[in-house]
């Protein structure tokens, strides 16, 4: 371990070494724990693209660092490298060839980290923390898209310090997703905009939000022909909306479902409703996973409109999740997301990233 220096070693991978205490509930699902996990809450996770052999996981955390691990098929995780920002890292993504990692941070910049040389240079600048960062690879251009709380969406050619394009957002950018040629950005005040990226990025449509609460996460899904066709939007009210861009029958095709709530049927106790912190679609099956502030993750089949699985409750909220490129690994980060405010923050609590085998559990259900 010790690659990252600060943390006292968590030891090798494998089931948690802290699992000895009976009350310890940090890994109830007995998933593989990533070694040397960050010291502060994990903000974002991203797996390497298929162009890179093997699996590499990148995690950005509130400790200002971005860490990279190699995840081997045996489940072993080897810390590889680390880069620092001067502010918490809120977004990470890979370039399509797997050689660069882009990181977005509260220090209002975004950096490009060349893994081969282990150098990071700044490629973007905003007036407020940068929340989202995505790599766009179009036939005629490539760029990095950054969304920030300064209400702009900027597109950067990594070689220039001036953005290629700046698009105004109605409000602060809270989450975004890109699958060429579609991009979705969800902003504060329940704003929702879809962009089309062919030729050059342009606003395609502003959508009236299907949800009634603050947007928190968004993920684009594809259709059977592997083209992006809609997105899943999660809010802080334990609800996810599945929205198709141009469905044959919007009233029937678009729907929302509730998730990450407690005590559903028990009417005597008030139901706790948790925020949906992340949504990720399985690259092969098209099923989705959601993680929430309640410390659980769930797998869903949106076509059959059923839930596939809900995990046990972890003792901390799950802040981020992602699938690897072939869908075999589901990574989720257990760390405090501030859902209960500052009072419940315990900096001594360890932050974990767990890896789970996702090949079987996310198989779609047969339609009923």
């Amino acid at each position, binding site marked *: 371990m010790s690659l990252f220096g600060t943390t006292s070693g968590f030891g090798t991978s494998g089931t948690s070494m802290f699992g000895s205490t009976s009350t310890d509930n940090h890994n109830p699902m007995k998933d593989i724990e990533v070694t040397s996990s960050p010291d502060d809450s994990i903000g974002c996770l991203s797996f390497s693209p298929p162009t890179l052999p093997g699996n590499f996981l990148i995690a950005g955390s509130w*400790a200002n660092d971005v860490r990279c691990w190699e995840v081997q098929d045996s489940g072993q995780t080897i810390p590889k490298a680390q880069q620092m920002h001067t502010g918490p890292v809120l977004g990470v993504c890979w370039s399509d060839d797997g050689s660069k990692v882009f990181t977005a941070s509260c220090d209002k910049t975004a950096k490009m980290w060349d893994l081969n040389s282990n150098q990071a240079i700044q490629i973007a600048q905003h007036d407020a923390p940068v929340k989202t960062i995505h790599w766009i690879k179009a036939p005629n251009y490539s760029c990095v898209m950054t969304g920030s709380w300064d209400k702009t969406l900027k597109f950067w050619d990594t070689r220039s310090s001036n953005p290629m394009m700046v698009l105004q957002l109605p409000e602060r950018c809270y989450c975004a997703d890109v699958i060429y040629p579609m991009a979705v950005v969800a902003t504060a005040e329940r704003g929702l905009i879809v962009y089309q990226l062919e030729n050059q990025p342009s606003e395609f449509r502003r959508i009236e939000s299907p949800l009634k609460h603050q947007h928190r996460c968004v993920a684009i899904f594809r259709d059977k022909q592997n083209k992006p066709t809609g997105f899943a939007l999660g809010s802080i009210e334990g609800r996810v909306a599945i929205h198709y861009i141009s469905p044959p029958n919007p009233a029937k095709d678009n729907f929302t479902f509730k998730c990450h709530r407690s005590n559903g049927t028990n009417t005597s106790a008030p139901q706790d409703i948790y925020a949906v912190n992340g949504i990720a679609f399985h690259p092969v099956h098209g099923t989705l996973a959601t993680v929430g502030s309640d410390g659980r993750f769930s797998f869903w089949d949106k076509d059959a*409109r059923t839930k596939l699985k809900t995990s046990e409750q972890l003792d901390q909220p799950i802040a981020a999740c992602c699938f690897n490129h072939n869908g075999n690994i589901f990574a989720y980060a257990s760390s405090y997301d*501030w859902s209960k405010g500052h009072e419940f923050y315990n900096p001594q609590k*360890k932050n974990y990233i767990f890896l789970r085998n996702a090949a079987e559990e996310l198989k779609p259900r047969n339609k009923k």
Partner: protein
Amino acid sequence: MGRKKKKQLKPWCWYCNRDFDDEKILIQHQKAKHFKCHICHKKLYTGPGLAIHCMQVHKETIDAVPNAIPGRTDIELEIYGMEGIPEKDMDERRRLLEQKTQESQKKKQQDDSDEYDDDDSAASTSFQPQPVQPQQGYIPPMAQPGLPPVPGAPGMPPGIPPLMPGVPPLMPGMPPVMPGMPPGLHHQRKYTQSFCGENIMMPMGGMMPPGPGIPPLMPGMPPGMPPPVPRPGIPPMTQAQAVSAPGILNRPPAPTATVPAPQPPVTKPLFPSAGQAQAAVQGPVGTDFKPLNSTPATTTEPPKPTFPAYTQSTASTTSTTNSTAAKPAASITSKPATLTTTSATSKLIHPDEDISLEERRAQLPKYQRNLPRPGQAPIGNPPVGPIGGMMPPQPGIPQQQGMRPPMPPHGISSYVYLVDFLSIHINLSAKYIAFKSTVHRPTQSIFCVLNVFCRSVWWSSSRHARLPSWCYATIWAGTANGAPLPRWASSTSDGNETSCNVARWPLLILLHPI
């Protein structure tokens, strides 16, 4: 509302005067609100049914229909949906609706007191005969006593306007009637009965005190009130007000009874529950037209299980709720408000709606040490950062950022050793050095908080690897819970150690790199 014979077209609930689009929904409403046992929450079908159930099952008597407006609480009356509503109530309702439409039309034209007078006088005649019938609910008090409102009425109204100012919660323009009504209304039968034969004057006086009780009326009032205010002749009432303070509750019904007469349209909205009911109905309504205020109902009764709970995990509770899918997005959009308001059965675990969790967190000083501020505390840690800042010997610094009790950093390697309770030797590895008087712009700071008692070292750093050479240390000592008090540490000149005698204090030591 431009339709006549509303009651035939739009079902309404006799118990609380709410309108519904469909009788089925009306029945559901009645079952949920009026015919629900308060003990076991069983929904019955009628008022008498509920009474019988409570008696047989819980051995409890019930004398009033729950959530009913005063005057409509009769548990003996067998009402189911629109069936069973007494004819006179039907008539009243019809009239009320007509008046409302007329009134709204009139409002549009002009707020002319003359018009209003005409209307009132016309209305008064129609009202008088109805003393017994609770018009829209607030009438009940009037009804009972059989106040001889008519004669007194003319006197009453005049006084009302002056009252208005006295009753702040009442809307301006809520004709005098209103103020008195609520108190009487709320207390339902008791007051109405005690009312009989009250001096009209008294009631008016009573109006004032009920001030606090009036607010509930407000919501209901506005709809009907408009014209009353301009009425002339009201001034006389003022005297009436002065008359009686106590026993208000009893009084108000009386005056109100009389007052309404002149202002028929007013009566309707007066009734607080009616007003609320109307408001509620006008509020968000779900696809099944159940007012969305009862969101708990909607959340607990999944509209339609398009998302069957296909759970394999043991978390059955979550799965059952999780699996419900709301109806297509279209219906969802009709629902406005946040769940927090419905609160009774649900609670949003999220601090604030305005900003995101990340924004909230990023505002904390400890996450704000970035580029612009050199030598700022490492992110990972408590407030200390700013203190360290670059200002070495400034005792005042710690107070910035509202020093929180230092929180133990995690995962620190052992660069600092605690020697003993009474004196602390900090032996820094070659990378961390504490000395030097001049402060250059530090690139980062390291703080460590030593809890002397526990001999534990709390330590935080961001780029822990990197303090190149000379720097100096500021040692702050303080209690474990409060803000550290500054004590200037002596820095020795041997370059690697700093020692400071502070006994039994947790220390905050800032090491400033150059």
